[in-house]
């Protein structure tokens, strides 16, 4: 299999292009996604290839075009909506939560809403409080939404292709600081299945579950810890809902220790959810309390040092691991 090194951004672009070539019902809606090629240049070249009806530059009307995607999805299209920053989903929330997520179940199983909402989140770039949040848990909380957060170009491409082919609404949250990162991506077509975690690094001493950009932090931490003889296993759930809890439980039953890392806020967050499930289903295997590494419960500040202080760091992960391996 021929493999190249491409960026996360280009991997997503390839997924969109391939799915649009394959299926004429796939359409893109969003702000500046067409002629300009996307605020993050993710949709570059697609307007030229597929035309305005399939790559639609919309007015700044998040609720309107997200809701249109719901109606389009119910009637035979497979829309992919781009919400420029995940912070702006607030404007489209009714369409996502009350319409897209509910239609299939509430209408008795017949309705299908095959749509994807692509957006990006995360802090670390000085975008401050309204452009830096990690809002994945808002969606994880709602039955009827699949929630994906890819950490690598390979996962981003394979998961987005699966998301577009899925018959249900998918929230696909990219990370603004991952767009320029690169990684190996096969030339040949492939899919990454939804709902399957990936063990990014194997180890026997401690399990680190991390999502999105935090996967890279966890891998760095694991590299440091190895120097001290601590072997960390790093698991990337990739799909937050439905969560592949089995892969996590298998690892915890091997290591007896768990650190969960997520860029969302600590309170009511992903780390709490994973901790709750693991203690419920693997209590007898745990040799230490489950540690949570998450963003502080403050709005993301602008100042560089304040921002970094608010976010999880590699050092935070190392400290959390050390506290559970008692070293």
């Amino acid at each position, binding site marked *: 299999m021929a493999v190249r090194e491409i960026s996360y951004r280009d991997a997503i672009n390839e997924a969109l292009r391939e799915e649009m070539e394959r299926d004429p019902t796939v359409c893109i809606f969003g702000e500046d996604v067409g002629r300009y090629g996307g605020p993050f240049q993710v949709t570059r070249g697609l307007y030229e290839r597929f035309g305005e009806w399939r790559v639609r530059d919309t007015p700044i*009307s998040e609720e309107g075009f997200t809701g249109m995607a719901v109606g389009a999805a119910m009637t035979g299209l497979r829309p992919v909506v781009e919400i420029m920053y995940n912070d702006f989903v607030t404007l489209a929330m009714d369409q996502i939560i009350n319409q897209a997520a509910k239609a299939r*179940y509430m209408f008795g199983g017949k309705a299908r809403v095959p749509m994807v909402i692509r957006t990006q989140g995360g802090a670390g770039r000085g975008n401050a409080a309204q452009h830096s949040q990690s809002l994945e848990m808002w969606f994880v909380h709602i039955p009827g939404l699949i929630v994906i957060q890819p950490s690598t170009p390979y996962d981003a491409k394979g998961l987005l292709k699966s998301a577009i082919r899925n018959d249900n609404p998918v929230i696909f949250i990219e990370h603004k600081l991952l767009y320029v990162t690169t990684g190996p991506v096969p030339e040949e077509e492939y899919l990454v299945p939804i709902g399957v975690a990936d063990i990014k690094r194997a180890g026997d001493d401690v399990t680190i579950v991390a999502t999105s950009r935090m996967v890279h932090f966890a891998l760095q931490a694991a590299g440091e810890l190895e120097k001290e003889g601590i072997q960390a296993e790093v698991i990337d759930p990739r799909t937050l809902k439905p969560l592949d809890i089995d892969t996590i439980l298998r690892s915890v039953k091997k290591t007896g220790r768990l650190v969960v890392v997520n860029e969302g806020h600590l309170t009511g967050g992903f780390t709490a959810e994973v901790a709750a499930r693991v203690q419920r289903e693997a209590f007898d295997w745990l040799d230490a309390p489950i540690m949570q590494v998450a963003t502080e419960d403050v709005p993301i500040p602008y100042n560089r040092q304040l921002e970094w202080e608010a976010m999880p760091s590699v050092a935070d992960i190392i400290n959390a691991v050390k506290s559970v391996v008692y070293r």
Partner: protein
Amino acid sequence: MTLDRAKLADMYYRMWLIRHFESRARWLFQQDLVRGSTHTYTGEEAVAVGACAALNRDDYITSTHRGHGHCLAKGGDPRRMMAELLGKATGYCKGKGGSMHIADLDLGILGANGIVGGGIAIATGAAYSAKVRGTRQVVICFFGDGAANQGVLLEAGNMAALWKLPVIYLCEENQYAEFSPSRPFFAVERLEQRALGLGMEGIPVDGNDVLAVYETVRQAVERARAGQGPSFIVAKTYRWEGHTVGDPLTYRPAGEAEQWKTPERDPIARFGKYLVEQAGFAPAELEEMNQRAEAEIEAAVQFAMDSPEPAIATLWEDVYA
């Protein structure tokens, strides 16, 4: 106008179907057999029936919390609707939706909606979809005079006008929004003026005149199919009953509703008069249709009562995430 006898009879029959459906729904609610809340369409029958008479089977509608009339007008099965009101396994939503969430995708009914204005963007997207897929389908988006104040109308309406989408925004100005008159909540003099800001012409129509509604919507459908884009119609009508069954109606002037129930204003009586005086129907024929509609609704109630409750295991059916 080209409405043959059979079509006129069908419209008249459907208006009665709605009226009888609602009177049974109200009764079932009062018996505590319908849960939650139920909103009746009584008095507004001409809007849904006139509008849907201008559609084909494969055209779409989006409906509202006050949706029974739209569903019946588009051809919905009263038995499955009534079963849904009773939460039964045979209901449209297998008992999971109830009164406010009935959909029939096979009939292009994209769902009633518990969110005021919830259908507006969905309808617009269905019209976008029809355009991309190259069908000649059109969409009617029913919404209330209260819903007209939702911001999504500006967003979606603007996009429909920009891209000439085949959608008809049909505002039902029934003069009330929940427990308040609607008029004090819009700054324009007439609701149809709102259309100007969307890049459309606003067309008022007498919502108690089924033929006027039909003709206005028919022309809008024709424009939509010809690629001339969306329309914005405001049907002036009146909500005979409370917002929900059980509404004490303290906010409504005494005697007001009675003025809308006169033979001159009641949409069914008005249409009946036309049918007798100008379309050659015998009064006995009309009475027969009324009774047949009542019997069909009675059978629907019986069907619903006799239907089984959903199995508890269905709680987890259609869950994917």
